[in-house]
């Protein structure tokens, strides 16, 4: 009797402890967002008032419209979105094509080529960025979006994509293909009409990963883009940070606008996001 009583007590204490730890850490994660949202509506002089106000006494919506006057924010957005779309599309297409070949087509040298590709994944981006800068300058591609689109598709991101897709195609039963081949399908049709539809979960994972990585890409835009209007969100926002100093109300309305759409997508597709991360495993 006593033992079970003790056990129950300890269990409920454990539960209380668990909830306390989780609540504290969750709060630390959420408060910056609330603070960001709150400041984004504040009057400039209210930013420094003490004690801190979570809910502003008056809401200043001009903070948001001001941002568009101060920086070409709509261009940052447009550039980020369209570059991310092209990169995702390109990566998914080329990586799944190559991933399928590595998984299923027995061609000479397949394993050695795959190994070379994989080992290139450990090359830090910073190493190739310097010659790439010269290369792009020769081509006249500095201050254009071409390096921001091509480098991620065919660089380490693409190699990662090949790896993910190969792992996926390997798990699909061979019988499906063999049947189609007997029916006289060529490999392009097998790939496009049979394999791709089955590999949807893998494609979804790769899409999510590529999108998030690209949306946050900072180093490449920093070295390749100089013109304001051509900047992506992370680059545009980081320069804006340098310029506005302590005009946090403007900065926070810009970060709210940069963050909210992605967070909404995340909440809608949360399960896939988290499972995708767990599935593809380790990537910084």
């Amino acid at each position, binding site marked *: 009797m006593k033992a079970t009583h003790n056990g129950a007590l300890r269990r409920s204490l454990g539960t209380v402890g668990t909830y306390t730890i989780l609540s504290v850490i969750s709060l630390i994660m959420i408060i910056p967002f609330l603070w960001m949202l709150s400041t984004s509506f504040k009057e400039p002089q209210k930013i420094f008032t003490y004690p801190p106000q979570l809910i502003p006494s008056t809401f200043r919506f001009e903070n948001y419209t001001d941002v568009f006057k101060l920086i070409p924010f709509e261009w940052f957005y447009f550039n980020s979105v369209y570059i991310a779309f092209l990169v995702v599309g390109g990566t998914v297409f080329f990586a799944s094509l190559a991933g399928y070949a590595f998984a299923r087509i027995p061609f000479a040298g397949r394993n050695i080529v795959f190994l070379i590709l994989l080992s290139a994944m450990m090359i830090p981006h910073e190493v190739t960025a310097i010659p790439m800068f010269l290369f792009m300058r020769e081509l006249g591609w500095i201050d254009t979006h071409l390096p921001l689109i091509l480098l991620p598709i065919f660089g380490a991101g*693409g190699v990662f994509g090949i790896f993910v897709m190969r792992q996926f195609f390997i798990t699909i039963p061979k019988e499906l293909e063999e049947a189609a081949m007997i029916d006289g399908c060529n490999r392009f049709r097998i790939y496009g009409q049979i394999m791709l539809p089955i590999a949807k979960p893998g494609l979804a994972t790769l899409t999510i990963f590529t999108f998030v990585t690209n949306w946050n890409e900072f180093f490449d835009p920093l070295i390749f883009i100089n013109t304001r209007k051509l900047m992506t969100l992370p680059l545009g926002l980081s320069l804006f940070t340098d310029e506005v100093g302590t005009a946090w109300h403007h900065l926070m309305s810009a970060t709210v606008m940069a963050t909210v759409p992605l967070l909404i997508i995340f909440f809608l597709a949360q399960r896939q996001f988290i499972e995708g991360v767990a599935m593809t495993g380790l990537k910084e």
Partner: protein
Amino acid sequence: MKDKGKQRRKGPLTREAQITGWLFISPMLLGFTLLLLFPMGLALYMSFTDWPLLGDHKFIGIDNYRHIMSDALFWKVLTNTVYFTVGLVPLNIILALLLALLLSKSLRGIGFFRTAIFVPVMTSLIVWSIVWKYMFATDSGLINQLLMLFNIKGPAWLYDTDLAMPAVIVTSVLKNVGLNMVLFIAALQQVPRSLYEAATLDGAGKTKSFFNVTLPMITPTVFLTVVMTVIGSLKVFGQIFVMTQGGPSNSTKVLVYYIWEKAFKLFQLGYASSLAFVLFFVVLVLTLIQWQLRKRWVFNESDA
């Protein structure tokens, strides 16, 4: 024998397979050669040259590497990078493991906590760094305003040579702890229930079964995560760029920041390349360790 049969079956396909196979990988292979392999080789060559942005470059042998050894700022930057890594990795891993253990219980509201902790992972690093720069701001920052409630005058976090790096480390841990947490949750779910039942039958308590069942079972994931987190930390850049710009007085200047500065602000492209190869060498060693460990574990698993 079995192999032979397989080959014969594939026989008539081979020619077609050769062509299609190479065709399918050719776009990636071409891009990879031009945009990764070729620059890698050029970078290696550049690291042995004095290469200004304009004008001719000249081959100077290992002078850049010799210069690195006597470059006081390089050692400072390397120390800072190690400081960042040593500060971040244990904090990140232990917190992620703790959260994963707590969140793999079946409790009410677990989904909410999981989401809250994962949200920063989904936020752009630059945005997260801007917001935390604001949190740490001396007068208007929330942290110092909250300290004021207790009549404590908060320090100028990001302008203090002792406090700037810890502030950046905390920001970075909070940003990425959710990622490692999810990886650990996935690993914990792989641990067979029967092992816990067996441990309980043997009279093991919770603590004991954690150290004797859980930990050994998830060790491979933990080690791989540690290596990946270390590699990620060695390449830290964005948060430094936004929060401190390497300051105050170089106290947060890290390796990649130094490479970026040398290459794209001072345009000492040769020297910057040799610095980048130092980074590459460290990452290479760590990756080889990781591969070795992975091989050993895979072997052990199939052995058992």
